């Protein structure tokens, strides 16, 4: 008679296979970041170098900046482990621990969404806020409520904006020379001019093709729409992210912007396209609205989450005074991840029944009211002439 090992059913696990498991998901996620990083390097480094505006070493800077972000947050996390956990005070144990907590990602992403000339110490501050406050104090990987990178971004955005702008801001050496930009990113122009007009919003930056390719001023990596779309396809095919979350998010913004355009008297399709291609929307939709830890887990929850993100982004972007609505919208929705998860899990388990109808109708009504408000108010902000009649005509 032999004694066998104990175990729990099922005795087959897909994660036992060599090419699966959380490590592989994270590896695929990093691969997804690659085209976006490369494009950011091309746009802010190689291209500017070819145009003769920076030296060879300066050409390497954007790439180094992003990698530095990853390095800084890894160091912070290692330091945190070292201080708080006596058992990992040797390199081997520390390395093992860092390998399953994916420490580099927050800093990496933070650097990607920061303006190019963010001073390194500001980046460190952001990485500290993201990794230590946003992630480790909540209990580390898997337990954080806020997207760590975004928390760092919001922290430096609210406190260090002046410092970053003094240091050079988002404009690379070539973009500074273009007079037409007038020192503003597309969304900055929108927030400043408060008009919906092709000549003001798109024409200074060339055409919408430039928006798609990403050769417009903006934060380091988030302008590369095409690269982000390629990353999206890769991540969706590899099932790292749910394919519908970014689509619903971007779709909601598209439709709401379209209606706002109509309400403000601008019926052209260019406006909703401009709206989804500028700012950090695509980047946020693909890499942050899908971030597994801080977003709802069940499919229904993801749908609700994405819809709310779309509405909030539009509200913050067009009605609030923030130039960038995406980051704030995602941070705000991160708070609601837990209640959404709970609510939608019950709805999903029970289906449409008496016990769930109140929450279903409540959610739907709340969403619709927010959407209508966004359209009416947005139309109001961007058109001096708005009355309800042309708005209704426009919608119909």
């Amino acid at each position: 008679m032999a004694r066998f090992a104990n175990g729990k059913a099922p005795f087959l696990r897909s994660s036992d296979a060599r090419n699966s498991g959380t490590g592989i998901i994270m590896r695929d996620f990093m691969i997804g970041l690659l085209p976006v990083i490369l494009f950011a390097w091309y746009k802010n480094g190689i291209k500017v170098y070819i145009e003769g505006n920076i030296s060879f070493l300066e050409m390497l800077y954007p790439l180094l900046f992003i990698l530095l972000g990853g390095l800084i947050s890894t160091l912070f996390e290692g330091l945190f482990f070292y201080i708080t956990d006596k058992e990992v005070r040797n390199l081997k144990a520390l390395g093992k621990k860092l390998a399953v907590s994916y420490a580099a990602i927050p800093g990496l992403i933070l650097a990607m969404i920061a303006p190019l000339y963010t001073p390194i110490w500001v980046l460190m501050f952001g990485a500290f806020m993201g990794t230590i406050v946003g992630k480790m104090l909540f209990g580390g990987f898997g337990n954080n409520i806020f997207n760590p990178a975004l928390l760092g971004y919001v922290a430096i955005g609210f406190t260090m904006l002046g410092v970053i702008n003094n240091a050079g801001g988002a404009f690379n050496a070539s973009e500074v020379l273009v007079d037409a930009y007038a020192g503003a990113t597309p969304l900055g122009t929108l927030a400043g001019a408060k008009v919906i007009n092709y000549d003001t919003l798109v024409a200074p930056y060339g055409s919408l093709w430039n928006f798609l390719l990403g050769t417009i001023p903006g934060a380091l990596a988030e302008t590369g729409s095409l690269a982000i779309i390629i990353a999206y396809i890769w991540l969706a095919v590899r099932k790292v992210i749910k394919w519908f979350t970014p689509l619903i998010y971007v779709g909601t913004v598209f439709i709401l912007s379209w209606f706002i355009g109509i309400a403000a008297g601008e019926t052209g399709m260019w406006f909703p396209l401009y709206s989804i291609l500028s700012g950090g929307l695509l980047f946020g939709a693909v890499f942050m609205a899908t971030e597994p830890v801080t977003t709802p887990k069940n499919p229904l929850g993801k749908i609700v989450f994405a819809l709310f993100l779309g509405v909030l982004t539009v509200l913050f972007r067009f009605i609030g005074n923030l130039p960038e609505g995406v980051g704030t919208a995602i941070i705000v929705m991160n708070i609601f991840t837990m209640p959404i998860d709970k609510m939608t899990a019950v709805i999903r388990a029970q289906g449409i029944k008496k016990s769930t109808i109140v929450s279903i109708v409540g959610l739907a009504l709340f969403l619709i009211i927010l959407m209508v408000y966004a359209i009416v108010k947005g139309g109001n902000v961007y058109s001096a002439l708005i009355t309800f009649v042309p708005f209704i005509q426009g919608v119909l």
Partner: protein
Amino acid sequence: MILHKAKGIHIDGRKQMSKESPLHEYLNPQFVYIPLLQQTSPLKRIVEVGDDIKIGQVVALREGFGEMPIHASVSGKVSAVKKVWHCSGKMVDAIEITNDLLQRMDDSIQPEADTTHFTRQELIEKMKQAGLSGLGGAGFPTYVKYLTKLPIDVIIINAVECEPYLTCDYMLINSYPEKLLKGLHYFMRAAEAKRGVVCFKSYNKHIKELLQPLLVNYPGVELKEIKDIYPAGWEKYIVQQVTGKTYEGLPAEAGAIVDNSATAMVFADVVEKNIPLISRVITISGEGIKNPRNYYVPLGTPVKDLIQLSGGYSEGLSPEKAWYIAGGPMTGRAILIDDLIVSDTLGAVIVKPMPENKLHPECLGCGKCADVCPVYLTPTEIKKAYETKDVELIKKLNAQKCMACGLCSYVCPSHIEITDFVGKAKDLLRKGA
């Protein structure tokens, strides 16, 4: 609801290894042990140590709900009553019968000259007297299903066998295809159903080739191919595939009764030869077995005999780094001592080396477990509710609907025992309610 269409995922079947060798008969183990447990009901022993026993003689009774007799599977002497390992993971009392190798039959085992005159009641009574229970794994007394007052349109034979490694049902059908149709025919008569459907998995096309030519003699019987996904053998899934209807409690609500193929084949013998449920086919397989095979054995046969017949464990297998699984790998149970006995619900013993220990991170919240759940639960939320002991929420999250198919643990990239957590939540619900 659109969101609630039936689903599952493909899992590598690993069935080939036990299909290569034909079905082996092993009818004369030296000892058999009849466990005094059926499902979760303890049985009342009615023989004493020293009694002379014939094949088919009643040795124990199940009482109360699902009452029925349990029969001896070999002839010989009752030599002891002792504790054995049962596939439920517990040690239970069992009647030890020392085989005299004479295969003396009880007088009740007589061939029926004519089976056409049996009425519905007589057929149901035969199921009961034969101690017929579901051989698919649940062990539910078959006759109880046929006592239903609801009209039954269709008898569904479940030959899907969606658990990886298992080939016991397939091998049995392969050997006696006609018996399956006979059993189904009697089942249809026992429920006065007009329609009978044999469900098999798409890669087992061979079953179709075997059964198709025989169908002419069995009006109302049809074959249905089921997609190669797990858990396609789940009763609700099959009933939905065949009738298009869903139900809450029993398949009878959808006008269907589902029986395992092996059960149907035993029933054919019950009706035609009056042989009660005394034997079954068991798969002995897994990477830890030298020659994986299927065995046709009397109930109560020690599994170690069968492993010996299969050449023992494969070389280099270290038991403390391997699992000895009673049942399929998805829903089975790890048995710590390799001293199991074959009982009605034990379809397989899988011996499998444990995979290498990888370093696993915490739940990253990917939601794959919720995606894959066939009953649309959100296991992560149930786990959370369990951790905070929120019974009310567990109930709202429908944890009781979980059938422990194991898919959530299977897909989890972080190797979390999520199925186990849902099981614990269910236990909490049962205690709390």
